[in-house]
């Protein structure tokens, strides 16, 4: 077990940091904000942590705090700037934001290490720290998924106008998701960098955007559990698929496409549907077997008055 743990420590840790990145895209998406600003903040956080540590000798904890705060502020400011945008227009603007950050760090001279990036930013993080951070994040997010707040978030996503007619300050919710996604991105970026000690402009690219999106759609976009399932799938897939060798990418492509076709709500959605069907079956089995075909209210509707 410990052998296994030590040889897979990088995968375990990157599962946790990638989860935070995926959540940074999922949180706004859940409120109907199609924003990839979190990925940009991943870059901001990663670079700030590395700069803080390499150039200014910051401690690991303060580098991460700085990164999270900066990510949150940057994303919040971006959110203020582009609050009139919606849908794919907003997505495009945030992708642009992310890619511009990549260009800025390439041209950042010694501060950012230019094209080569920075190295030697090895923090003192361990898996325990990561777990603690992720646990706090997950618990906090759970509250936004259930109960009244969950319903409101859903209303903001599905029908903002209806939401505001229900007394919900839609703009405030949107700005909040920006800030949260920035913090999550900053956390993810800084912790990734401090674990692996290097950061390069290449780390902030469109593929990361695509990866984050793929994770949450394949995993399930409605709750952190979906993000977690997706993260596990995509972080561990190369390991699991190693046996197919050079066909790994082909198999990867087929699996992703198949998930898109056959799993409407992602893996978690499919699991929940299965569970619901199972429950219904059981309920039906329990209700008296000789009764006429189940009358799940709907069919009886016409005359139940």
């Amino acid at each position, binding site marked *: 077990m410990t*052998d296994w743990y*030590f*040889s*897979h*420590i*990088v*995968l375990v840790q*990157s599962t946790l940091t990638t989860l935070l990145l995926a959540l940074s895209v999922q949180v706004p998406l859940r409120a109907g904000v199609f924003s990839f600003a979190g990925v940009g903040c991943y870059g901001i956080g990663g670079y700030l942590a590395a700069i803080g540590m390499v150039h200014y000798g910051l401690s690991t904890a303060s580098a991460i705090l700085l990164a999270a705060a900066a990510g949150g502020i940057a994303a919040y400011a971006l959110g203020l700037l582009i609050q009139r945008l919606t849908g794919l227009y907003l997505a495009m603007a945030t992708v642009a934001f992310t890619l511009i950050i990549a*260009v800025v760090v*390439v041209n950042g001279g010694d501060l950012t290490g*230019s*094209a*080569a*990036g920075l*190295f*030697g930013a*090895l923090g003192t993080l361990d898996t325990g720290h990561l777990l603690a951070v992720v646990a706090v994040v997950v618990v906090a997010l759970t509250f936004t998924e259930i109960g009244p707040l969950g319903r409101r978030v859903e209303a903001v996503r599905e029908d903002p106008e209806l939401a505001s007619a229900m007394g919900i300050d839609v703009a405030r919710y949107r700005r909040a998701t920006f800030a949260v996604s920035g913090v999550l991105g900053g956390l993810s970026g800084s912790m990734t960098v401090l674990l*692996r*000690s*290097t950061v*390069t*402009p*290449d*780390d902030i690219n469109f593929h990361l955007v695509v990866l984050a999106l793929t994770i949450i759609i394949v995993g399930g976009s409605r709750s952190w559990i979906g993000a977690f399932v997706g993260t596990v799938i995509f*972080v561990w897939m*190369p*390991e699991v698929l*190693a046996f197919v*060798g*050079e066909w*790994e*990418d082909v198999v990867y492509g087929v699996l992703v496409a198949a998930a898109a076709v056959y799993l409407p709500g992602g893996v978690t959605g499919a699991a929940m549907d299965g569970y619901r069907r199972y429950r219904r079956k059981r309920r039906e089995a329990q209700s008296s077997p000789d009764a006429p075909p189940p009358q799940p209210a709907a069919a009886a509707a016409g005359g139940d008055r």
Partner: protein
Amino acid sequence: AQGGIATQEGIPKEIRLLGVRDHTGPVAYAGIGGARGGELAISEINRSGYLGKGVKLTIEEVDTAGSIETASAEMAQATADRTVHAIMGPTQGQQAATVAPMVERAQVPTIFTQAGSDGVVINDYTYRATAPMESYYHLATDYLAEKRLRDVSVLYNATFPTFAEIGDGPLPKQAAARGLNIVSSTPVQMTTQDFTTPVRSIAGKDPDAVVMLLTEPQSVTALTQLRQAGYDGQVIATSVQGGGNLKEAGRHGKGVIYPTDFSPALTSRKARDFVAAFEKRFGQLPDVYAAEGYDGMWWLARAIKASGSASRDGIKRGLQEVAKDGFEGAMGELTFAGGDMRVPGVLVRWNGTREELVSGGAS
């Protein structure tokens, strides 16, 4: 796995190595080349009983698939495996820089090929069998000075670490030292595909030579469009254009000159033997990546022999010892700066079908 094997002193019957590099993805050619060169070297080492009768080097390759994540994950697994004596590390600079601190923590000697950025050879366990491009790029400026090609334009990919390093620093310095006049310096980025505009302004200046530091597809396009823009002077490129990468440029690629650490056109006996053996085994000419993999593997074998131990510590000591004296490899007389290889380098010309020697390469 039984623990402790790779830490035992002495030379066991089997010495297990792991190759952790790109076998798929955009720079797969570097990993594949390195793996093939190493494979050839291993077969020679094993066949000749170089490490003693019945002693066998074995290598297993894992694919980092072009990603830093996968590279560090694979490396974590590799270093945790106590039966692994040494690792032939990733070829991409950033992958290598990321795993460098890991191999030190795990104390597994690792030889990189390529991996041309800073932050790779940083401790007692990191070694590199590729000379940094800037260490032999003076061959190009020497040539220009010698041919009196004074006015030079530079077109370079400033977001690719290796080229950025040369284009921003050593190249202008070397040029100035040799009395060359850099009339224009045009940075482009990784995503630049069309060069009509930059090439147009270069052609307008009509310099004596153009130094072009670009990736493979970029160089084909830039060359083609440079010629179409009416420029017909000398083009100087890099080893990235070696290994037949200019083939697609067709007639526009003819006559391009570049410094490289290895060319099949090299005439030393070592080089000729390597080329012949490689061709026999793989049915094609070796590229620079293969030569580096080959010489890197021989460095390792010499190290084991020198320290008389294939333990991780023994290999580390041996590598340092061999580096002190240097040795002759396929790339010529190899010297070392710490754990980092240096080569004499060679200047070659692409004649449309293969490389021809222009200068250097003497051994």
